[in-house]
């Protein structure tokens, strides 16, 4: 399924000084910048890899930073979407992007004497200490003051620090720091066999466990040359779609909470609990963990097909009644309309992912452009809108809730027709000594997730998750300039970002 990712013909290597120009030309030619990855090349060198998405493929451009070099010509001036990637690579690898317009620390303000962690290099690291003192203010002027928000938020949220600089109501300048939550995930993968690696992948962005595990396992399966049973592919799609429903409902209920719609909030949180319980009924885990394994899945859904269909139908009916009422409640919609606008051109230039992209005219959905799991055989409906505001993102999510439930139902039917896999094996054996490199992907509820995976004799030597949360977070401050403080919660909920997925 991912023959394009490791196919030599679709990736090319260039001299380091030509890298930025080549990526710029590719993006101007219509390809989407999907991420910049660093891979250590012994002894002491670092390979930079830009991934570029086009319909049906994910070609890449590589360049090698030779040993002893600590800087390279920045890509951000020609492709602004690379800004956060270059800051991350600077923090984690100590490689300075020269001419980067804003190379502040992103992931990790390390003490001066702390070595770059260099994920993939396998060097031992001492425990880290960081300075978590608050950010200094940037804006000065009469009446301008600063609201420090986080890292300990008001309410049950993941830790992230926002600094809102405001003359009173408008938000002309928003800064954020996400590294408080940096867990050093990439280094923890290393040395693990793939069956442990998938447990890490499930926790890279815990609310999108199934999508992360699926993307990770696809990369492993591609390296080992394994194809998974059709039934396993259907189970992956089934769980992936229920995960989408739960995440989208989470976003919807946070909108209702911010709007003070008490009954709607109650109803939505009740529906979300029902989805979580259905997921647990299918696999004994409320987040679908333990389902996706390298080579396939752990087994069939634990509910009988009739029961599963009944549960999906009931859920769909209840959701349709409440969501239709919500999406015609003027006091709710007024808060969403025209708020937090990301213009279509901005989203296109950044390559915005998932519902954030689809609310701003970016129709791409990995389930369609690079089908994985069972999406090639399932009736996928995708939705996008052009307004780019919170309401457009909410519309996209509401429509996706119903198409996801429909996909889950079709996957259940197909599973019923397909019966047991040959020999009752829900997972194909994966060579325990496999070596190689590949990239896997999935359309998580937040958008496209990518996994760069390297195996050496059956052990992970590099695993890099790139969540849609990370990619989209760089757009977050751009949604504010026309909005006021009370819009903050709506814009944040509409981005649906998991900080765990950003901070790594």
């Amino acid at each position: 399924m991912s023959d394009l990712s490791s196919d030599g013909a679709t990736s090319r290597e260039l001299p380091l000084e030509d890298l930025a120009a080549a990526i710029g030309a590719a993006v101007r030619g219509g390809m989407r910048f999907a991420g910049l990855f660093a891979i250590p090349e012994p002894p002491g060198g670092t390979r930079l890899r830009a991934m570029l998405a086009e319909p049906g493929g994910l070609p890449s451009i590589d360049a090698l930073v030779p040993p002893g070099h600590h800087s390279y010509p920045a890509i951000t001036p020609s492709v602004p979407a690379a800004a956060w990637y270059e800051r991350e690579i600077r923090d984690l690898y100590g490689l300075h992007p020269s001419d980067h317009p804003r190379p502040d620390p992103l992931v990790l303000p390390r003490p001066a004497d702390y070595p770059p962690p260099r994920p993939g290099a396998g060097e031992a690291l001492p425990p880290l200490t960081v300075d978590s003192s608050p950010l200094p203010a940037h804006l000065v002027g009469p009446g301008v003051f600063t609201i420090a928000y986080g890292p300990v938020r008001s309410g049950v949220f993941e830790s992230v620090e926002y600094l809102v600089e405001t003359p009173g109501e408008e938000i002309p300048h928003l800064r954020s720091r996400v590294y408080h939550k940096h867990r050093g995930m990439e280094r923890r993968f290393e040395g693990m066999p793939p069956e442990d690696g998938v447990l890490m992948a499930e926790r890279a962005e815990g609310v999108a466990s199934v999508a992360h595990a699926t993307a990770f396992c696809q990369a492993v399966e591609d390296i080992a040359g394994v194809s998974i049973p059709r039934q396993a592919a259907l189970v992956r799609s089934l769980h992936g779609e229920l995960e989408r429903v739960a995440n989208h409902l989470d976003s919807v209920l946070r909108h209702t909470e911010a709007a003070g719609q008490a009954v709607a909030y109650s109803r939505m949180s009740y529906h979300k609990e029902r989805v979580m319980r259905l997921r647990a009924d299918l696999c004994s885990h409320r987040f679908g963990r333990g389902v996706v394994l390298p080579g396939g899945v752990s087994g069939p859904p634990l509910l009988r097909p009739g029961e599963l269909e009944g549960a999906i139908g009931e859920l769909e009916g209840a959701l349709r009644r409440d969501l239709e009422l919500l999406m015609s409640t003027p006091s709710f919609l007024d808060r969403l309309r025209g708020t937090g606008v990301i213009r279509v051109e901005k989203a296109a230039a950044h390559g915005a992912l998932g519902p954030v992209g689809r609310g701003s005219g970016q129709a791409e959905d990995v389930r369609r452009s690079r089908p994985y799991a069972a999406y090639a055989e399932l009736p996928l409906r995708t939705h996008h809108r052009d307004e780019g505001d919170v309401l457009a993102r909410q519309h996209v999510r509401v429509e996706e809730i119903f198409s996801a439930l429909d996909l889950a139902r079709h996957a259940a039917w197909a599973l019923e027709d397909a019966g047991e896999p040959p020999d009752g094996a829900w997972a194909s054996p994966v060579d325990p000594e496999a070596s190689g490199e590949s990239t896997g992907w999935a359309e998580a509820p937040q958008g496209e997730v990518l996994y760069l995976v390297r195996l050496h004799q059956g052990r992970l030597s590099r695993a890099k998750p790139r969540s849609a949360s990370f990619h989209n977070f760089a757009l977050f401050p751009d949604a504010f300039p026309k909005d006021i403080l009370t819009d903050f919660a709506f814009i944040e909920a509409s981005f649906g970002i998991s900080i765990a997925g950003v901070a790594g």
Partner: protein
Amino acid sequence: MPWISRGLRGGILTSRYPAQADGYGERWAGTIRLRHAGGGEARDSTGLAVACPTQAIAVTGDGLELDRGRCVVCGRCVTLRPDLVELDHATEVGSLARGDLVVSTGEQGDEDACAPLGAPGAAPGSLPGDDLARLRASLELRTRALRRSVHVRHVDAGSDGSEEWEIAALTNPVYDVQRLGIFFTASPKHADVLLVTGAATAGMIGPLRQTYEAMPSPKVVIAAGTDAVSGGLLAGGYATDGGIGSILPVDVWIPGSPPSPFSLLHGILLAVCLLPAAPGRNRSHDTRPALVPHQPGDPSATQGSPS
């Protein structure tokens, strides 16, 4: 207007827990249980210890030892040796002592073998029954004033994000913790209980300490989730501590990856001594104290009692 009737539709959705057992608590596994197989079968179980991704299982002289505080309930051990371990369909998995999360198939009921808490050479964290009772009594004394109005401040110290969902679920109509006098609060100055998730990342240690220090006494700390208890899969990484036990005096330890809403609710009720006296609901069947010491150097194991 239509929302009023919508709110009434469906009747009461709320669980009766803890006054009555809730069947949902037994529908899926909250932790792993050791089966009481004889020593003979356990001797060839080294593979089990090797297979565990978080080293939660150890083979001891006379049996197996399982540290639920390290377990991420991946179920691999159950697939490998269903004769020795099984999924435990319990949600009341929290405990007042870190050592109490360590269970063993070794000699049973031989509590005299345990040195008294704090005595030289005592197993760090493991508690004989008397000491557990003493711990409970001291916690009860501290939290007596909180009973009918418990304010909880949550801090994410490096979670994977799923723990926050399960904590937020406590306010949905099914769990509805407000009915029990439990409220989430934004200000640490109003908080009685500090509910911490995540393995304590380097960047969150400072903010976590500040939050704790800003809380008025008496205060209670809960480590919510395997990451907060032991670091889980992240233990030993450069950017995280092995859980929050080396940073704050933890009163209640709740394993789980993530812990379910019922496990969290049980842990909060345990922290403020609000659990009804009648035992045995949604209860794990294997809660005898450990007889075998922790691995030396596990910082989370030394924080058994509140300061």
